[in-house]
């Protein structure tokens, strides 16, 4: 028994140094996009530049909150150089908290200005869109909702699921509605949605899975989740909402340089690399079907081509202003 304990401790002690090595020429990225998709890109960067990338990933299960909480708590002594968010909402909040350094990447010059902060605090690329996903066994073609505002109609009572509109892309979507529809109209929509027995679930993927498994007929989710279900040959189809109205919300990945990060120069090099057209093209070809913001790049399939979608016109500065009060309203009135 004693020998086993001594041997175990000895092995552990030997293993520890391998876990804590820190090379000098490095860059630290806090990355909300899954390692499966971002890992090869960062590996290429390492090979090309010789700069070691240390990545910290998050899980959508906690809605990027792990990384954001950490960045905020580390604000006085930042450990990260770059923040790669798989959407835009938290990036806007953190910009407001003064956590980013301005950096206008040369490689991002052909990304449309709509998707870039005018002062260079963040840059968008490779987007997802919010879509309506429905189960083809449970919803007839003639009753597929064409607008998210349709969700309040009696025909959809108890048949729609959405993620909690206080976290993730659903929170950003709620704030976008406040910007686009106005305060009174948005509040009315959410109150009526609640009255129509809308199911509130933990996340977009869970909502998509419920639709795929026939537990619920319709949900509001993201294109990557919808594509995942379609690739699994589930009986689902997706539609871009509000194509004859306000348009579908498009949420780009966003990248920002952390103020006071330990390797600022390497951080800028990494941002330049990630924002290159080649990188956006690689992301577009993955099963997450990220939609390139550069019109000249090929999309995953025609279904995921931004040029063929009516996009919701959104002022990201206004959206940022609405994020907090939108969450407060949702928490106080919709989730009560």
């Amino acid at each position, binding site marked *: 028994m004693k020998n*086993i304990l001594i041997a175990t401790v000895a092995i552990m002690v030997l*293993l520890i140094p391998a876990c804590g090595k820190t090379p000098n020429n490095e860059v630290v990225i806090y990355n909300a996009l899954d390692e499966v998709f971002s890992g090869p890109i960062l590996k290429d960067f390492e090979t090309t530049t010789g700069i070691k990338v240390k990545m*910290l990933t998050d899980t959508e*299960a906690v*809605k990027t909150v792990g990384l954001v909480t*950490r960045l905020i*708590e580390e604000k006085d002594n930042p450990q990260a150089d770059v923040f790669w968010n798989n959407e835009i909402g938290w990036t806007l909040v953190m910009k407001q908290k003064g956590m980013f350094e301005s950096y206008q990447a040369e490689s991002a010059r052909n990304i449309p200005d709509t998707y870039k902060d005018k002062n260079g605090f963040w840059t968008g690329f490779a987007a997802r869109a919010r879509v309506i996903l429905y189960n083809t066994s449970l919803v007839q073609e003639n009753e597929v909702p064409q607008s998210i505002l349709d969700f309040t109609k009696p025909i959809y009572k108890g048949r729609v699921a959405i993620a909690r509109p206080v976290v993730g892309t659903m929170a950003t979507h709620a704030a976008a509605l406040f910007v686009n529809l106005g305060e009174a109209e948005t509040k009315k929509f959410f109150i009526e949605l609640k009255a129509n027995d809308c199911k509130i679930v933990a996340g977009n993927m869970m909502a998509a899975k419920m639709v795929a498994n026939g537990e619920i007929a319709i949900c509001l989710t993201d294109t990557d989740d919808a594509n995942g279900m379609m690739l699994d040959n589930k009986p689902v189809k997706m539609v871009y909402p509000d194509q004859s109205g306000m348009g579908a919300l498009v949420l780009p990945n966003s990248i920002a340089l952390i103020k006071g990060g330990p390797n600022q120069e390497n951080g800028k090099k990494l941002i330049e690399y990630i924002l290159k057209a080649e990188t956006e093209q690689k992301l577009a070809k993955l099963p997450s079907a990220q939609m390139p913001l550069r019109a000249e790049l090929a999309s995953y399939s025609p279904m995921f081509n931004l040029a063929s979608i009516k996009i919701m016109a959104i002022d990201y500065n206004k959206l940022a202003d609405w994020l907090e009060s939108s969450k407060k309203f949702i928490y106080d009135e919709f989730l*009560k």
Partner: protein
Amino acid sequence: MNSFTKLAVIICVLVLLLPVFYMLASSFGGIDIPFITEVISNNRHWILLGNTAFIAFFTTLASMLIGVTIAVIISRFKIPLARTMEYLLILPILIPSYFMAISWVYLIGVNGLITNYLKNIFETPWMPFSIYGKLGAVFILTLSYFPLVALMTLSGLRNIDFSLEKTAWLTASRWRAFFRVTLPLVMPYIIGSGILVFILAVNNFDVPAILLTDVFPLEIFYQFSVFFRTDRAMMFALPLAAASIGAILLWYAVFKRRPLFTVGTGWKQPAKIELGTLAKLVASGFIVLMLIMAVFLPLAGLISNLDSFNTIITTLQLVSDQLLNSLTAAAIATLAALAIGITAAYIMEQPGSKIKWFLIILMALPLVMPGSALGIGLIKMYNTGALMFIYKSIWIIILGLTARYMIIPTLILNSSVKMIDPSLENAARVSGAPWHRIWLKIMIPLNKKAIIISTIIYFILALNELSVTILVAPPGFNTLSIRIYSLYHFNKNAEVSAMCLIMAFIVILLYAVLASVIFKDKNE
């Protein structure tokens, strides 16, 4: 044990608790009376609290009934494949409870396999009960947690002197002797495991979320993750923390006296009772049924997700770094927590010990407070100056894991330590044996079964821990739990299943090795 060692362990505990103290001080520095009034007057919070109380209470009750029954059957009756069944009992603890929930939704959800099968037979949607809601949450959490009770009770049943029960046979029936002599002796283990289940159930919101039921921990999540109000999150955590600590203190108050009987070395476990055919069928059938519901169905779900056996090999290559990281951190944290746990358990049982109540409350704090709070506390304490080398290394995770669950081995080992006759230690001391020899020759051997069960439970919890780990893992240092949750979101079911199966294999192997080393006596 000399005073220096006791002092060293108490200092270790205090160091582990520094982030907790920091968070308590910063959160309750300015009590927000208007907010508290608003919380109390809001009906939603009372409904959520009611849901949480319902789920935690009935999960604990059901887990204890099922767990104790299984432990008694395995330890006292001759049934086929008893040891195999015991090993299999580890699996439900290892499979994250949300997997269990998802597997059961696939089976008996609105469009589940069994639901549809029954629908075809009866031609109408028919299920005896809905998986959604509070009852469904109790059902799933019971399947996840009853093995904790079973394994801890088994450990207790093996730790007592069977000759006491045997003596009682002279004047009472076997059943009466069991209920009047043996059961009271293992009661600290049973109630202790019940408290552990209660703490885990009261803080779980993954399973209720999947089953569309809102519970009180959701409010803590909102405050932390939506509004970034750590102070308010801590206030919301107070009722749950108070309930958990209250349960632990009640347990300790009830069992504070040493049992009249003691454990020791060398005695045999009882010869197992031969059952009639029908009774054997019922007893084995009950365990098999529970294992089917808690192990085989979720496991079948996991295996069915694999494209081929190669998925396990490719996944192993994909996550080998994370697996090594997780195993290293969990192993070191387990050893540290065991060392602290057994010492704390010993200190608590010293005659005239004045700090035992205080020690229990202190050691329970990291478990009963939200994991995110502990994570933030660790960042605040260690992301600075001279301590940065800890923050940037695996040690920050080890500190977090050790602090988070250290009360669990303490409770389990306390149940065991309090059954040891102090005269054994006193005799050794009077004979001039140094303290470390007393520990190696008396304390550790006499507590070996409790040590094994603590090791397994702690190791599994440490491997699966997410809420603290995700906040403190150094860049470039990913763990398996973070990877599993992440891949699960991205619908990588095959890889997730492969990772769960790899973890299951490792933990069962560990249990088998430990058991073969310790259970040398064939009768055990």
